[in-house]
């Protein structure tokens, strides 16, 4: 059966941004290039461009988040949009209101874009399928499924540091099973054509048939890091101990914690990334997180430009981007 990509409009332009999967390489490169043009804006004295002036962006967060929500808010404001932050975290749904009810209420307030975070995989697709046609949906994380803007800001950071994707070997370390970030990173990396993606972790934290995503699986950290250019460590949630997925933080750190010693297995110029927030001494040693190879804070900075790029492209205004407008706003 032929399925049309819900993320694209009839001209093949980005309409929603829900997942990296199914997007062409050129689309990802366009996002990165657009983000690069915005990175300049961020450094200007007046940090605004008028691309989304008069538009209303709703940050619809069904799950708590500070960093992601803040960067989306900043991105929207720098595009001159009006921003509404809604933290629905279970309150409305506990009263029996369904997700669809919530959406219809917001649509009635004539919004233009929903930035959605939800604990259920597929929630962003569900919302995109049911919103009025003029509304764009950006996935800010749905369950274990996808977190595409995070993945794109990671790609942006990698390109900034390494230049080209083709020769790179990238290792993602930790809880792949529960990680929407890892899934989106894997799709982005394979689409952009890196030479190898590895996932490293114990079997309890790797999803079934993960190889089908196009990655190589390692259970030994040092072996997995050998000859690697980019290391992405993932956050380990405390609750993984409860579900009998791991015996202790201590053993996890011993086996999979990124330390100066284990980092030495990678290439000398390997960059260290983390989507944050970091657990120092659990998945990463402080001296590595704060060390010269770490780009963790650079990732956060890049988050704004990448989200500006995705938002403006979804609103169909990416063709109008013009640096000179920046100062005029």
């Amino acid at each position, binding site marked *: 059966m032929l399925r049309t990509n819900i993320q694209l409009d009839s001209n093949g332009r980005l309409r929603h941004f829900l997942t990296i999967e199914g997007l062409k390489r050129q689309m990802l490169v366009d996002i990165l290039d657009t983000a690069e043009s915005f990175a300049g804006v961020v450094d200007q004295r007046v940090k605004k461009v008028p691309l989304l002036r008069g538009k209303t962006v709703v940050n619809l967060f069904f799950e708590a988040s500070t960093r992601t929500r803040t960067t989306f808010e900043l991105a929207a404001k720098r595009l001159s949009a009006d921003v509404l932050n809604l933290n629905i975290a279970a309150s409305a749904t506990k009263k029996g209101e369904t997700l669809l009810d919530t959406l219809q209420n917001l649509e009635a307030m004539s919004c233009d874009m929903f930035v959605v975070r939800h604990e*259920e995989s*597929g929630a962003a697709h569900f919302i995109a399928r049911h919103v009025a046609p003029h509304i764009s949906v950006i996935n800010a994380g749905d369950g*274990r499924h996808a977190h595409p803007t995070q993945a794109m800001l990671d790609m942006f950071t990698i390109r900034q540091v390494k230049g080209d994707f083709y020769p790179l070997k990238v290792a993602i370390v930790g809880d792949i099973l529960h990680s929407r970030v890892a899934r989106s990173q894997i799709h982005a990396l394979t689409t952009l054509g890196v030479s190898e993606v590895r996932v490293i972790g114990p079997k309890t934290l790797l999803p079934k048939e993960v190889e*089908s995503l196009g990655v190589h699986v390692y259970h030994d950290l040092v072996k997995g890091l050998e000859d690697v250019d980019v290391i992405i460590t993932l956050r380990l949630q405390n609750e993984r101990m409860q579900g009998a997925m791991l015996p202790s933080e201590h053993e996890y750190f011993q086996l999979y914690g990124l330390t100066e010693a284990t980092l030495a297995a990678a290439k000398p110029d390997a960059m260290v990334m983390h989507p944050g927030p970091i657990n120092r001494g659990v998945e990463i040693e402080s001296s590595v997180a704060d060390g010269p190879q770490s780009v963790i804070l650079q990732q956060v900075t890049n988050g704004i430009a990448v989200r500006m790029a995705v938002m403006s492209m979804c609103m169909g205004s990416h063709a109008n981007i013009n640096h000179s407008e920046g100062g005029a706003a």
Partner: protein
Amino acid sequence: MRILIKNGRVIDPANKLDATTNVYIADGRIAAVGNTLAGFTADQEIDATHKLVCPGLVDLSARLREPGLEHKATIASETRAAAHSGITSLACPPDTDPVIDTPAVIKLIRQRTERAGYSRVHCIGAATRDLEGELLSEMGALKEAGCVGISNAMIPIKNPLIMKRIMEYAATFDLTVFLFAEDSSLRNSGCMHEGAISTRLGLPGIPEAAETVAVARDLALIADTGVRAHFCRISTAKAAQMIARAQYDGLAVTADVSAHQLYLTDMDVGEFDSQCHVRPPLRSQRDMQGLREAVRKGTVGAICSDHQPHENDAKLRPFREAASGISALETLLPLTLRLVDECRISLSDAIARVTAQPAKILGIEAGTLSVGAAADLIVIDPEQYWSLTKETMLSRGRNTPFIGWELKGRVEQTLINGMLVYSAS
């Protein structure tokens, strides 16, 4: 009322009959099947030339949602949809509200079924009180009231000791135990088959072992207690093999599969299509092939609809939160007939899987055109192509992933107890 059904291709697997001939019906029963019947004058004749005439379908599992969930469907709405779809007898699982754990509920269902005047409904009683998996239900009374078996519906019995007691107590009354093989610990929060697709979608997976572990445990307990048992809606090829092995070893076990498991896989979940949220989940291509093979061989003896009608809203949620189940009465016959084209099963065998064999599993007199049997039969136009659309569905539940499928074979007439309850023309 005396009815003559003329010149159809009569298929009656229980009597190994497949011939173009007549069926004579008198006083609600089959009077004869053959070319002539001396002294028979028909009040009504149905010309079945180029049509199939076969026993009415027997569906091992159809939820009618009454009592308790009438906002989803009612006995009247669903038995009518069943009759129009060629299903003349169906078994109703005990997870109504209140659950079928007392004779009073059975009586209520019977009364409403009779008032509706369509398909026959057989109750499967609750194995434990309120389906809570702790206290035994009054199986003696349930049997007395007419239950065709007992089951704990889709609520797995976690404690093997309680399962053993259920089997022992059911065996006391010669009741069949209908088992839903799912290990709830292994299922955990899963909502689709664990594999490449669940990994891609980030949906919690239900491993194959959630089924095979439960089948293995229950097979051991069946062997231990000697109860007659039936595995409902198996979804994995491995479980089918384990059951085939147990049958070979002489255990009194049977199994069924829902029709959708023979056509859909986890791939069909696509981008979170909640119409494909079912339990047990749609499995892999390999499982689907294995189940088809088991149906062909007969180790999985029956195909059922596993009809679960829902109101529209129940599916309008993110995948995992959406209610599971398919409104499936209307696709049981065409999907069963399609097996003839797709997997080397004879027409007679395919029809047996939805007539004689489920009737035998339920221990009811149905699913055959034997002389003297109740005249529950259908006339099918086997060459008619049609599409399932939401607008034309008769069930209250329009929740099905088969919308838009081109289906072949449609019911022309349905007779129950010798009465014409549905006629397309």
